[in-house]
């Protein structure tokens, strides 16, 4: 008998099923994995940003207690360098990727030069100190723009002027220049987007184990993409058959992009384990190593030329960006400033003449790759600064400039002229209006005017940020055209066991997002089985179909859809089996409330558990039906999804000290349909906070010779509890038609929206002093100096 309707879970703030292990200390992160015979690898790193390695003497280290081996670049020069799997499309990329250990030359402080493997981690640190390296220091260069100038130190022979690629999108530059020259209002500005360190609280780590009996390798790694890491390690680096490698991501303590990439240690620990006859070898970086060497984000320096009418309509925009990519190319580095940034610079506006040119550049810093919001964060910061510059130049209110230039609901699907996929749908003005209403915009503007009139020390600033972003990556065909060297679909397998219990495997995987909860909610509703009966398995290449992993806010929109479609297939098979068992025509069977029955007769129906049992034992199946209830889907989305919204930040800036206090933060987001509002709000809180950190506090600083001056959490300021406000969130819901869930994705939206909202607020607070732009982070010193220079 099929029971009455169970409670629907999608849309409900269900407490996370991941949490019991994490609040009790029972989670298993990479540093918690315990294996018998575990040996420890530590890394000797270059203290120079650019140098030739003259000689390495490790004799003393080799003789130290507990040392199992010391290895240099020379010892492993037969192993391929790491691959670069996303190049800027349609142009030549001068590719230089890192070797596992530097050979001959280092190109950044922190470049791995040698490793020691020891019985205990403390012995490893001792042995490192006993290795002598003779370097010949070479001139280094920091700053992407500077690195392209004549006479700048050269990093790689094949890249004259340190240029990796030059790439552009939109109309011809000449055409846009002509439109700029003909514009009533013209503004030119240099806009920066400083280099950031992703700073997941768990650093990166890996453990490699070789099995001499089977010739198989197992890699445990802090990974956002285990299948991809297996593929790259096997086929591109070690030359080991792909099926001989298994990759497992244990609990992962945050990633924000930095754990997408293949790093030197991942193939290296596997190779070392083989050298040690199968002893597992572990690497767990410390925070200093993480800051020096795990890929950074952002790092743009742009020239902007804006044309507008006197009443605030944008007529032309030209953006020329130098994008720092660091000393080598990280796994997908060139794709971020091209596809994910260049093609999104128009934001949510109709701009009739637009050209974006990108120069990707090598400099002697850490590698720069995708970090939360990747490319779209830089694009939204650029365009939202541009809109405020137009408001500043024309005297039209920033909210009005946005309204005037918005893509309108009837314009969708909308092509922004930059060669990307069309925006699916949206109502940008609705989100703006709601945010203005929530914050009490007109009253705030009045208060701002009064404070200015009175010469108040606490100056009020109101910053707007209307954004659209592109996420839910693939589709594969488009990404292939864009230089992505693989597919970008996602896999899911849904299996109902004989006992009626459900196992879901997915190529998506969590590093804090709560996939196990969200996906269980989805399956519970679609299949009508209890939440508790569902197990979501992920993060292990063994026994799961290939999947591309979690990044680009794709887990629900792409991975979730693969699950949804697998459930539908299972349900379809269950209905066919029910028709057979109930001796009815298949078209008369309905599936509802966890069972299948003949229309109008639920009391004589079969529950999904009964059907699973029947399907498994296989005693009585329709002709040609295979046993079990199980289905696999490889879902390739037809397009990106485009979340949008408006965020407004209200700040007070102290005229005497330049200090900023965030007074309010209002966000109206449209991420489409929501499965778990608790998780969605949490993603927004975290994303907004990271973006706020960029606006006010964070930034990597390198000395001229390439030493990192912000090399620890003492010097690199991520947001602390006392630095964050309470956020006021609301949603508008415009389901996307791109996927059947109507979900747009939420992992990055907060970070994409908040940086310009906060920066615009600070600049707005001091705009009456004649300031129209400042470089982030907007520290008290920087704001104070800017005020001092303008009074």
């Amino acid at each position, binding site marked *: 008998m099929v029971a009455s309707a169970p409670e629907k879970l999608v849309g409900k703030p269900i407490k996370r099923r991941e*949490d019991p292990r*994490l609040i009790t200390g029972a989670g298993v992160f990479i540093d918690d994995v315990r294996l018998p015979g575990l040996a420890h690898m530590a890394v000797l790193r270059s203290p120079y940003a650019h140098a030739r390695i003259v000689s390495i003497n490790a004799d003393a280290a080799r003789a130290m207690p507990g040392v199992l081996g010391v290895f240099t670049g020379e010892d492993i020069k037969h192993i391929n360098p790491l691959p670069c799997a996303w190049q800027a499309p349609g142009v030549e990329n001068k590719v230089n990727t890192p070797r596992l250990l530097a050979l001959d030359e280092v190109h950044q402080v922190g470049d791995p030069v040698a490793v020691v493997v020891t019985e205990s981690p403390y012995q490893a640190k001792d042995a490192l100190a006993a290795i002598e390296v003779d370097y010949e220091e070479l001139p280094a260069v920091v700053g992407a723009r500077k690195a392209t100038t004549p006479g700048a130190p050269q990093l790689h022979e094949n890249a004259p002027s340190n240029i990796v690629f030059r790439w552009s999108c939109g109309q011809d530059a000449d055409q846009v220049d002509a439109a700029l020259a003909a514009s009533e209002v013209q503004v030119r500005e240099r806009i920066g987007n400083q280099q950031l360190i992703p700073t997941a609280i*768990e650093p990166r780590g890996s453990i490699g184990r070789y099995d001499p009996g089977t010739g198989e390798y197992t890699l445990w790694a802090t990974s956002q993409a285990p299948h991809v890491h297996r593929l790259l390690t096997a086929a591109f680096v070690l030359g080991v058959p792909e099926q001989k490698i298994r990759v497992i991501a244990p609990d992962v303590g945050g990633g924000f992009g930095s754990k997408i990439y293949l790093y030197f240690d991942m193939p290296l620990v596997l190779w070392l384990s083989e050298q040690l006859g199968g002893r597992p070898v572990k690497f767990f970086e410390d925070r200093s190593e993480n800051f020096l060497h795990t890929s950074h984000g952002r790092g743009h320096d742009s020239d902007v030329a804006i044309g507008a009418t006197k009443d605030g309509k944008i007529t032309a925009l030209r953006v020329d960006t130098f994008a720092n990519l660091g000393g080598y190319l990280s796994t997908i580095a060139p794709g971020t400033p091209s596809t994910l940034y260049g093609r999104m610079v128009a934001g949510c506006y109709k701009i009739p003449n637009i050209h974006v040119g990108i120069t990707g550049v090598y400099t002697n810093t850490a590698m720069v790759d995708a970090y939360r919001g990747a490319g779209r964060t830089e694009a939204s910061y650029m365009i939202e600064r541009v809109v405020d510059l137009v408001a500043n130049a024309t005297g039209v209110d920033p909210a009005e400039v946005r309204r005037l230039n918005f893509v309108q609901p009837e314009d969708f699907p909308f092509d922004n002229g930059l060669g990307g996929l069309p925006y699916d749908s949206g109502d940008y003005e609705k989100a703006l209006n709601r945010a203005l209403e929530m914050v009490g915009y007109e009253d705030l503007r009045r208060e701002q005017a009064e404070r200015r009139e009175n010469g108040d020390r606490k100056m009020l600033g109101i910053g707007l940020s209307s954004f659209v972003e592109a996420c839910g990556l693939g589709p594969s065909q488009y990404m292939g055209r864009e230089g992505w060297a693989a597919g970008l679909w996602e896999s899911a397998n849904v299996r109902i066991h004989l006992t009626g219990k459900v196992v879901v495997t997915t190529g998506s995987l969590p590093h804090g*997002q709560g996939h196990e909860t969200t996906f269980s909610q989805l399956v519970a509703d679609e299949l009508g089985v209890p939440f508790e009966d569902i197990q979501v398995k992920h993060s292990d290449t063994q026994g799961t179909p290939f999947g591309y992993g979690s990044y680009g806010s794709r887990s629900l929109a792409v991975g979730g859809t693969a699950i949804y479609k697998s459930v539908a297939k299972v349900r379809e098979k269950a209905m066919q089996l029910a028709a057979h068992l109930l001796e009815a025509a298949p078209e008369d069977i309905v599936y509802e409330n966890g069972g299948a029955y003949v229309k109008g007769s639920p009391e004589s129906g079969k529950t999904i558990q009964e059907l699973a049992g029947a399907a498994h034992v296989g005693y009585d199946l329709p002709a040609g039906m295979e046993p079990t209830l199980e289905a696999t889907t490889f879902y390739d989305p037809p397009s990106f999804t485009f979340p949008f919204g408006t965020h407004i930040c209200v700040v007070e800036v102290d005229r005497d000290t330049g200090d900023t206090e965030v007074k309010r933060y209002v966000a109206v987001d449209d991420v489409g349909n929501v499965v778990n509002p608790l998780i969605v709000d949490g993603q927004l809180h*975290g994303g907004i906070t990271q973006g706020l950190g960029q606006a006010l506090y964070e930034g990597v600083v390198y000395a001229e010779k390439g030493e990192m001056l912000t090399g*620890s959490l*003492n010097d690199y300021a991520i947001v*602390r509890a006392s630095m964050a406000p309470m956020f006021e969130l609301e949603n508008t819901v415009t389901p996307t038609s791109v996927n059947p869930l109507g979900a747009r994705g939420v992992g990055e939206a907060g970070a994409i929206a908040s940086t310009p909202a906060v920066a615009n607020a600070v600049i707005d607070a001091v705009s009456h002093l004649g300031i129209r732009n400042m470089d982030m982070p907007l520290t008290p010193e920087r704001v104070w100096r800017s005020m001092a220079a303008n009074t």
Partner: protein
Amino acid sequence: MAEAVATRIPVKMTVNGTEYAAEVEPRLLLVHFLRDNLGLTGTHIGCDTSQCGACVVYLNGESIKSCTVLAVQADGGEVMTIEGLAKDGEYDPVQQGFWEMHGLQCGYCTPGMIMSTHSLLKRNPNPSETEIRHALEGNLCRCTGYQNIVKAVQYAAEQMSGGSAPTS
């Protein structure tokens, strides 16, 4: 150096109610003793400058960063880690608060965050939002933006004080 490595010093301590004795290098950090010698891996390591707070435990009733204390300094002491917080299978109200209010995402900072919160509520059973944010300055979270952590602390405060609403 080689001599220093060879030197071992006996330590005894009670951790989560169980007595342990071991011989350790004098330089061994308490956090490594807990994790590597005792297998209590709930206490995490997130930095090398005592900034992140992922390693916070109780030592003799005071919350400390166990990456900044040597195991030999804890000799004769009483330690409580995240593994010792739940009693008789029941979560501590602080643990419950983090679960109820979605006060964690990746969970890596969570054990330290919970221990620091526990210590705060012992000192100040009814903290204001400002006091909570100030008290947790030594614990870094990169996922939550702290809003739900504040709510988790308020939830726990309310539970522990028998339901009276915390002041804001």
